[in-house]
């Protein structure tokens, strides 16, 4: 146990990086996901095709491949940012495909009369999506979005494989120095489990507060 306390600063720093990665990329994924979802349900065929292509591409490519491509491939064509920024952007772009699909299932769950009523009072497609459909769709997909948040937390660990020193990388480094794998990896695993449990608790509360009973 003392090994965890001895290296608390490094592990704590790793945990902070993991939380930063998770929070920033989930926020980015939420915004981008709403846009992609709007594209996928729009009346314009070209925009729908773009949305579908986006979702298909990013749901079928491994995140690690995208990270490797961004970290080692893109500098070759002169695109380079800080490693934390790059990791956040890649994870956000990847998770946005999942957010978009979750939202779309929410949009499909909104009852038909809502869209018709929105059009009947003269709202355009964009307005009806923004003021009528999406607010209701969001409330029905709190649980799926919570699951995506937990998946995002776990996926940020992959950034360790391309050189970001997050909790996983920090645990690995401390283990290489101390060679006491059991307390170190159990500690790191417990930290991830704690984040996931917290996320589950919050989404549970949110869902109870936001759910629309029909």
């Amino acid at each position: 146990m003392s090994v965890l306390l001895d290296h608390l600063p490094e592990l704590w720093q790793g945990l902070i990086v993991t939380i930063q990665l998770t929070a920033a990329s989930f926020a980015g994924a939420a915004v981008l996901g709403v846009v992609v979802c709007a594209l996928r349900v729009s009346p314009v065929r070209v925009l729908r095709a773009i949305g579908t292509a986006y979702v298909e591409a990013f749901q079928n490519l491994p995140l690690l491949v995208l990270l490797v491509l961004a970290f080692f491939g893109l500098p070759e064509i002169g695109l380079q940012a800080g490693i934390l920024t790059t990791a956040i952007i890649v994870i956000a772009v990847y998770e946005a495909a999942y957010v978009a699909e979750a939202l779309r299932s929410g949009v499909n769950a909104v009852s038909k009369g809502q869209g018709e009523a929105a059009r009947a009072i003269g709202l355009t497609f964009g307005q009806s999506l923004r003021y009528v459909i999406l607010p209701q769709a969001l409330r029905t997909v709190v649980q799926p979005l919570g699951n995506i948040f937990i998946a995002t937390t776990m996926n940020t660990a992959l950034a360790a494989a391309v050189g970001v020193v997050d909790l996983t990388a920090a645990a690995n480094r401390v283990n290489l120095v101390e060679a006491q794998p059991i307390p170190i990896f159990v500690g790191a695993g417990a930290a991830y489990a704690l984040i996931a449990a917290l996320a589950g608790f919050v989404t549970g509360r949110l869902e109870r507060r936001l759910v629309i009973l029909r």
Partner: protein
Amino acid sequence: MSVLFDEPGPKAVRRIRVATVLGTLAVVALAVLAVRQFAANGQLDAARWQPYATWPMWRYLLDGLWSTFLAAVVSAALAMAFGLLLALGRLSPRAWVRGPAAAYVEVVRTIPALLLVYVVLFALPRYGLDLPLFWKLVVPLTVSNAAAYAEIFRAGINSIERGQMEAGLAIGLTRFRAMLLVVLPQAARRVLPSLVSQSVGLLKDTSLGFVVSYGELLYSGKVLAAYNGLLIQTYLVVALIYLVVNMSLSKLARVLEARQSVTLRRRTAGA
């Protein structure tokens, strides 16, 4: 027509046309930008792409793909078997079976696969367990995916009507045999699409071979890129292969799902 819009009127038709033009322009602009960026950095030279028009390169990468398949199939088979046991454990009437199975699923579902890979890579050898490379990738993937498969199987078993189990018990089968002969075959068929899409996820996870140094597709790409220095070209080709393979598998899941809803509808119509 979708719930969200009607048959467009003259005004909407005009708006749709504008959006079509703008959308197309945006895609074209993005493509032009990408090509210019490639060209400006000399990455478009024929010499830098030509290797990927030759067979030895492809044979090397396809060898990698084969290893990816091998790792994915072995860990999928092991994880499904283990997951099924966990699901049965979680549904067991005995608390001392139910508790550990539930704990395993809930804990493992929240631990990153990479952390498990590090455990197998750096922790187990210290206790004298140094697995061959293949198993260093397969074991962590099996451990983490078993929890996901367990939840799929549990959902499938729970979705089978109670009457099926009761009928099994009524004709004198034991609980175990009724589960094995009556409930499970139906549950397995019902969750087949979810099993396939989870397996696509598992195939994506095999890219962790990059960390393990097991010669699957992404690691083969890494080796190749280190050898010929064609970083972006190699990783783009690798990404393309993943895309084609996974899209075909996802398509399979959708076909299975569609077929299933047809059979279900037919059955309900017949009843």
